């Protein structure tokens, strides 16, 4: 069964296109590396950055190992608190990716259900939902998130916030970006709804929710897949931006964004690596995701086929 599926996949046009696209292969490989290394961080990382007992303040701001004054124990150097930068980046990337993926799952859940209902039901409900989406899109994601997170911190104190930071970031980024999905899904649903197979299943007597989610949804999957890759990258960037502004992950449990932020004060005192290294890690992560998104868009949209 599994072998048959694999063979089917090997024969598919998707695999064919993928095996010919060097950019896609390299991007996919790097992404896999990120996922594997970061999610096995407790095994791979030489230090546990969350454990205060292994951190020595005397080790702070040690440059990467290959530089003068470098310490072979700390491959990428240490940050201002004396944490091993390599380990912290692994744990931080894990947090960033978790937030990115979960926020996008939330976006997708909200956006797909609302967009599907708006497109399928139509009429005044469609108008109502889409105007809400328009209003929400007219505020920038970051602005909404900043206001919301700042108010939350002011109301409930930073201590509670630090405990709930991951959940809060997922909620805020997830809710702020649902209109992207809703609009895409609605547009495809409007196109699919007019096709005869929808009439045909209505004639079979299926209930609307079954028609929507079992028949129309699979036909709208390709645009959803394409925007998902881009949205994960966007969510990671949003999270990094919020953390950089001090509204994201706390310094004790840093994500890539808060690491970049924490090193920012020291950049002029010469400790550039605390900011630059996690910055490069973030840029590569976002870049490969966008490249994979481009690849998916080209493959899944036959109209874009060149020659």
């Amino acid at each position, binding site marked *: 069964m599994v072998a048959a599926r694999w063979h089917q996949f090997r024969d598919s046009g998707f695999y064919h296109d993928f095996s010919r696209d060097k950019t896609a292969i390299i991007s996919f490989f790097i992404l896999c590396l990120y996922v594997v290394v970061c999610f096995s961080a407790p095994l791979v990382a030489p230090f546990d950055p969350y454990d205060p007992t292994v951190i020595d303040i005397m080790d702070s701001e040690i440059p990467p190992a290959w530089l003068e004054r470098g310490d072979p124990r700390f491959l990428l150097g240490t940050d201002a608190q004396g944490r091993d930068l390599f380990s912290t980046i692994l744990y931080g990337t894990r947090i960033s990716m978790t937030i990115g993926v979960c926020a996008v799952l939330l976006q997708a859940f909200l956006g797909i259900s609302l967009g599907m209902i708006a497109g399928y039901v139509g009429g005044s409900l469609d108008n109502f939902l889409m105007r809400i989406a328009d209003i929400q899109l007219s505020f920038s994601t970051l602005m909404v998130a900043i206001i919301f997170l700042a108010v939350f911190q002011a109301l409930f104190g930073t201590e509670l916030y630090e405990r709930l930071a991951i959940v809060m970031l997922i909620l805020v980024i997830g809710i702020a970006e649902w209109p992207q999905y809703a609009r895409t899904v609605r547009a495809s649903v409007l196109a699919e709804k007019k096709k*005869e197979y929808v009439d045909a299943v209505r004639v*079979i007597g*299926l209930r609307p929710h079954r028609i929507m989610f079992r028949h129309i949804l699979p036909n709208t999957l390709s645009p959803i897949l394409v925007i998902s890759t881009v949205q994960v990258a966007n969510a990671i960037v949003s999270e990094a931006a919020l953390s950089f502004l001090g509204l994201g992950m706390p310094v004790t449990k840093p994500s890539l964004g808060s690491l970049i932020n924490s090193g920012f004060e020291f950049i002029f005192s010469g400790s550039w690596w605390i900011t630059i290294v996690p910055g490069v890690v973030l840029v590569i992560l976002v870049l490969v995701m966008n490249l994979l998104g481009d690849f998916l868009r080209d493959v899944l949209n036959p109209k874009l086929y060149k020659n």
Partner: protein
Amino acid sequence: MPGGVPCEVRCRHRDPQRDRSCATAPVRIQRRHSIVSLLEVKNLEVRFAMRRQELIALRDVSFKVEKGERLGIVGESGAGKSVAAFSILNLISKPGYISSGEIFFGGKDLTKLTAREMSQIRGNQISMVFQDPMMTLNPVLTIGTQMTEALHAHQDISREEAKQRAIETLARVHIPSPATRFDQYPHELSGGMRQRVVIAIALITKPPLIIADEPTTALDVTIQAEIMELMMELCESSGVGLILITHDLGVISQMTERAIVMYAGRIVEEGDTRDIINHAYHPYTHGLMDALPQKTKPGRRLNQIKGVMPALSSIPDGCAFNPRCPLVIDLCRTTLPQFTVFGSTRVACHRAAARTD
């Protein structure tokens, strides 16, 4: 005008040859009345509420389908054939709506059912076969999924049983190696095969009535004949009633027992198919018959009905066909013709009596 009016009163034509059929007509009409019809549409009117005005797509449409009967509906594009079919299933999408009339099926008026009750009828009691099999199957689901879905929606049936039923039904529509086809996707089948699958989906719940909306228009001619033969065979073997919508008079004459001719949203002629084909009374039906290629000598231009059907927004007074009618008189431009009965047929035309050929 219902068919129950005594034939003698209405019988106006002077052709002695036709008198025989006229004499037998009352008996036939009575027989029809004694059975409870499978489907009875009464004075159906469908309107489309457009921005500026309301367009009336169907006016005063009444007809019946008996158990196991095959009824054909013919007419040009836009005559209201498909609207009539969709309104039976209450599937006219906005801005269209049924403004008046009744549709009796199984003792219930379908126009008064709730959405939930209606979806119990759709697919279970009345199925539909659409025009283009390339479009009516969902490209991302397997044939099997799409077939068993209809069963699961209406019957409490296990997955294994449903699969068994689906494979049996595929075999009934003469699909080779049905068990393999069950797991395939629509794109792996040819057009004719797909239409067979669509017919199988319509049959799987064993409904008493199937509506086929131009089921062969999208297929090539040899496949058309096969599909028609298949539908004929299935109807006869299982006693399914059929409403066949088409603009192909040849198909109507082979497939159906009774036929309805529609023009601009009204029924203009209705009767036994053989009588309509052989002795059309309405000039429009006549025009359709004359337009058949067989009626023209090779090398000549085909006959055609001059002009086009009026748009719904500008249907002329009187008889809607009057601007194109070769037999038009002043009365046709002012007064809507009532139905007149000639033997098995009823026809809405002031000049029907003038047709004695």
